[in-house]
């Protein structure tokens, strides 16, 4: 088998991967660094982030306030040392991006402009109109072109991590263009493969977000952390799941039920004011808004649409000028995909799966428990998002922890010896044989990728959606076990070597099934409600037993193990999450 | 390559200037002398008057500009039309020499005629 060799290998070419690549190149220009990505880097899903990136920059703001918002927003499941490091470094990273050319929106005097965002008590969200992710990704990608030392494997799919004596020393990957299966060895591997929204039927996530990196790490024996915490974004378009950014609410949009009533006032989120109030009503956190939607359905106050129940997002009172200036992409998306103009019409929205708080368990430098393996971005869980991520924290997260993981991996690789044993090459050879036999040459299967994928998505939606119960989760677990069995019996129409996307989707399906199983089992074990994980059979938060991270892993025999690891609390002891007017806060206390 | 790099802006400038002159001045001239007079929409010019008009220094300058710059406009544009329309970029040298040859010859002819008129 052909092999190639690098010092640091970044799996995934999105925001985290590219930021990490630059960090490696800057840390030690002598290192042979490579980015391997299943799509061209500028196609990565970072591109779709809209609203903005939070970073403390204005004089009226402080690191501590951002920390508090993040920690309370995460329902005290955040590791507070990680949060603090993150929030201190976020503005520097955003500034670095500014120096690399990111076209941040500006104040009239030329300084960075900031906007309000859900769950944030201060205005601190940097933005580039409502295409922030797009500009960040392209700025990073174009900046990496400057570094000749960054080698790219574009449109290669990693199928396995090579592990030798407990240490990760490379990957096996398939080149889509040629169908070549190859071992790529490296002293350090950084997973930056993004999230797994595609395990659900309605998601803002792109087709490529299939949890590949989480599954790779899980199969290699690394634990996944807090996988039960899945963020629903309260405002997705009903058929496509296309995201209508939170910035639409930050600029003053209202959430209305079928009576035109701002229903969030009924859910402990404050009183309706004509202008947006920080940490109140429409600017509450995403988990609470999505949960309020389900309650509205139960009350029969939602609107029946062709794709199920919806509520309305009302931007009409903002006026055409503000919408064009601050939310042009929202208008473009509504016109294009819903045939309506938000300047004059209501936007039908529903909660859709948006983000995975959990992921590959890492420390504050992106290191996983497996030596040589690092992770950053949505596929990782450093634990800054806890049980519910605040909007505009994920873009700085990919930058801060992309850079940290890059630096850590570079330092590890600088000190490590090349370790490519015969056993590793044999593993790679075995993997190649597996891919050939189970997929490319297999003709006797009778299952179809899309059928199993759809069944899995429906199972997750009904079993592990916004509200879960013991029964729904157990049913889902049973169902997923059957689906995993069936997935072993997939037959491909396509046996071609060249750009075999059906093979790719089969491999992705296996990754998604791993991730789905982890989600359901993690959710089953956590018998409390916290943030985005709401158990109707255990409606209260239980800090005595569950102020802890779920760690799910599998042993050599494939048996699932769930463990817990205490949350790191430094300066912010667990308290109640209060949103809405200060007067209400006082009344409640 | 280096030589071409430094010259292309000059050719493009001539092309643009010629394009402007051609757009502003040529239609009315062709309209008068190519259509209106031959078709007797307007009366034909008296020879002497026309000659004295053309002999005015300002008119000579005007006519020179009107003839020379549009030829450079033509040379540039027609060159690319041949490249793209006929896919003959490999004949670059021949095409280039012919197009600009016409432009230079036309300009010299115009200068000579207007000098002697």
């Amino acid at each position, binding site marked *: 088998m052909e092999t190639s060799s690098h010092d640091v290998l970044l799996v995934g070419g999105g925001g985290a991967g590219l930021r990490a690549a630059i960090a490696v190149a800057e840390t030690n220009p002598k290192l042979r660094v490579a980015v391997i990505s299943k799509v061209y880097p500028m196609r990565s899903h970072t591109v*779709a982030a809209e609203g903005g990136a939070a970073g403390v920059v204005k004089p009226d703001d402080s690191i501590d306030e951002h920390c508090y918002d993040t920690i309370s927003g995460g329902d005290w499941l955040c590791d507070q040392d990680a949060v603090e490091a993150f929030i201190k470094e976020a503005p520097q990273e955003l500034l670095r991006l500014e120096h690399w050319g990111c*076209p941040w929106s500006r104040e009239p005097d030329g300084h*960075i402009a900031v906007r309000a965002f859900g769950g944030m008590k201060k205005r601190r969200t940097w933005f580039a109109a409502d295409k922030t992710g797009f500009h960040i990704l392209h700025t990073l990608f174009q900046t990496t072109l400057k570094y000749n030392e960054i080698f790219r494997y574009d449109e290669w799919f990693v199928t396995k991590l090579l592990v030798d004596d407990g240490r990760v020393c490379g990957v096996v990957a398939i080149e889509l263009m040629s169908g070549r299966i190859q071992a790529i060895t490296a002293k350090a591997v950084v997973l930056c493969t993004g999230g797994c929204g595609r395990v659900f039927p309605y998601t803002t996530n792109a087709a490529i977000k299939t949890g590949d990196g989480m599954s790779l790490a899980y199969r290699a024996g690394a634990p996944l952390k807090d996988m039960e915490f899945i963020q629903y974004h309260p405002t997705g378009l009903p058929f496509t799941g296309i995201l209508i950014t939170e910035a639409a609410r930050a600029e003053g949009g209202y959430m209305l039920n079928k009576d035109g009533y701002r229903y969030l006032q009924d859910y402990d989120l404050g009183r309706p004011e004509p202008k947006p109030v920080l940490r109140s009503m429409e600017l509450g956190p995403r988990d609470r808004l999505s949960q309020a939607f389900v309650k509205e359905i139960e009350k029969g106050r939602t609107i029946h649409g062709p794709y199920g129940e919806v509520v309305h997002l009302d931007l009409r009172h903002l006026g055409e000028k503000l919408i064009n200036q601050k939310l042009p992409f929202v208008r473009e998306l509504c016109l294009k995909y819903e045939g309506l103009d938000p300047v004059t019409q209501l936007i039908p929205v529903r909660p859709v799966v948006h983000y995975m708080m959990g992921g590959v368990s890492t420390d504050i430098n992106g290191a996983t428990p497996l030596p040589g393996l690092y992770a950053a971005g949505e596929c990782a869980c450093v634990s800054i998002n806890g049980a519910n991520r605040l909007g505009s924290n994920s873009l700085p997260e990919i930058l801060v922890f992309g850079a940290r993981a890059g630096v850590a991996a570079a330092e590890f690789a600088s000190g490590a010896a090349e370790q490519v044993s015969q056993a590793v090459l044999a593993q790679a050879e075995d993997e190649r044989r597996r891919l050939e036999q189970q997929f490319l040459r297999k003709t006797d299967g009778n299952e179809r*990728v899309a059928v199993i994928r759809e069944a899995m998505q429906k199972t997750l939606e009904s079993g592990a959606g916004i509200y879960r119960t013991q029964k729904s989760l157990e049913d889902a677990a049973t169902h997923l076990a059957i689906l995993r069995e069936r997935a072993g019996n997939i037959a491909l129409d396509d046996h071609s070597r060249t750009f075999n*996307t059906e093979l790719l989707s089969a491999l992705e399906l296996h990754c998604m099934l791993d991730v789905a199983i982890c989600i359901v089992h993690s959710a089953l074990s956590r018998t409390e409600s916290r943030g985005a994980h709401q158990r109707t059979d255990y409606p209260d938060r239980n800090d005595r037993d569950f102020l802890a991270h779920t760690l799910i892993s599998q042993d050599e025999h494939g048996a699932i193990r769930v463990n817990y690891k205490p949350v790191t609390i430094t300066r912010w002891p667990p308290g109640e999450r209060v949103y809405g007017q200060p007067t209400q806060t006082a009344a409640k206390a | 390559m280096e030589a*071409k790099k430094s010259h292309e802006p000059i050719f493009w400038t001539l092309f643009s200037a010629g394009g402007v002159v051609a757009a502003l001045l040529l239609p009315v001239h062709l309209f008068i002398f190519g259509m209106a007079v031959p078709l007797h929409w307007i009366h034909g010019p008296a020879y002497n008057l026309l000659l004295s008009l053309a002999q005015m220094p300002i008119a000579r300058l005007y006519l020179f500009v009107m003839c020379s710059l549009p030829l450079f406009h033509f040379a540039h544009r027609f060159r690319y039309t041949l490249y793209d329309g006929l896919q003959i*970029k490999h004949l670059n040298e021949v095409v280039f020499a012919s197009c600009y040859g016409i432009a230079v010859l036309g300009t010299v002819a115009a200068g000579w005629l207007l000098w002697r008129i």
Partner: protein
Amino acid sequence: MAAGGTRVRTANSDRSESITMARNIDIELQVSRYSPEQDLEPHLQSYRVPIRDEWVILDALNYVKDKIDGTLTFRWSCRMGICGSCGYMINGEPKLGCATFLKDYAPGPVKIEPLRNFPIVRDLVIEISDFLEKLKKVKPWLIHEGSNGQGEYLQTPDQLEQFRQHSMCINCLLCYAACPISGLDPIFIGPAALALAHRYNKDSRDQGSAERMATLSHPDGIWGCTFVGECTRVCPKHVDPAGAIQQYKLAAAMDGMKSFLMPWGKR
């Protein structure tokens, strides 16, 4: 395209799940197929798919891939017009598959082919490494000498406005498919890359325009463009590459004239 190669395939009842959609109205897709392992050249294959109001071309292709023919090969990802993966020729026009509604082509047929002016890898998948080389050539990154330390480079909204439009390029390459020069002259740097170069040149924080001029003012750069204007017309993000290139020509011409008239002046 070999007309004889046209075969119609529809969903096998045993394979498609219970199809909830109304099947009374459907439409014929004619999709360009090319398998490098079997074919010498592309041919069209027909599929019948239902029409639904909210379906874009991409939904129809995915319907085929999922239910009728798993070998159909195409790129896609975000399906919201921002990742730039799904550019195809749809009835001869370069368009994004995720932003083009199926119902607009009723009663059909709709012809879907790979983007023009690129080598075809397979079916609708084109080879784009050439574009990435060209992109790198124009140095699409901020060049700023001096202090790269603390504090932001100030930029007023007006200064941002100068290049904002040209920064919207999603590299979907529809402009290359629309540009005849890109097809005729493969070394022409092309609309998207030139527009991105212009984007950095017009950025008030950038000081690299002189550096970029060497590449751009080359005959394969801006001078190759004859202003067909199609790149701008097909651009789904209104980047206006044609305008960018002409503006750049004007700037380069001024620059050229200056050094021609004043060779002693500073460059």
